[in-house]
């Protein structure tokens, strides 16, 4: 069972890897914003499978943390990209 779960984690990681490299290439910023979301699901799945494979419940905590922070990172990306689209950059204060 443990090696089956690790093999599944391997496949999920591979799918995430290929997806990530494709997303980072994506022609627009909108594509690249999806990278955090991709890792938020793929990385979480791989970690959950690893946690069951090695019987370590603490790894589920890492998956929890990853899910929360990936969501936060996605919001930060969307905010930054839409901020740069709409406003011209703020003038720097003369120092």
């Amino acid at each position, binding site marked *: 069972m443990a090696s089956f779960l690790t093999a599944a984690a391997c496949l999920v990681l591979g799918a995430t890897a290929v997806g990530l490299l494709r997303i980072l290439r994506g022609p627009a910023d909108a594509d690249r914003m999806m990278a955090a979301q991709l890792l938020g699901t793929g990385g979480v799945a791989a970690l*959950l499978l690893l946690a069951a494979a090695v019987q370590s419940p603490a790894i589920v905590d890492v998956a929890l943390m990853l899910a929360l922070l990936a969501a936060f990172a996605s919001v930060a990306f969307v905010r930054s990209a839409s901020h740069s689209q709409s406003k011209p950059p703020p003038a720097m204060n003369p120092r």
Partner: protein
Amino acid sequence: MTLALDIFTALAVSAGTFFFLAGTLGLLRFPDTLTRLHALTKADNLGLGLVVLGLLPLVEWPFGAFKLISVWLLVQLSGSIVAQLIADFVQREEPRA
């Protein structure tokens, strides 16, 4: 009993992995940002749900199972809302007729 549970885990995890691979295939082949977003959020979330379902027999009740389901609910919530945000952004950037 444990054999039946093991088979259930194997089936659910395999189905979940299959959906992850399908999601990546969609990412590679779909022509458009919005369709790629679809492939990413729908297929991958379904894959995660099936993986969590398959892992439920393996963890201790109730606290371990509760944590697994919370992770899945969290990813569902954030995934769906982030997908809407990104789609909103794409819509504002390139408005369609």
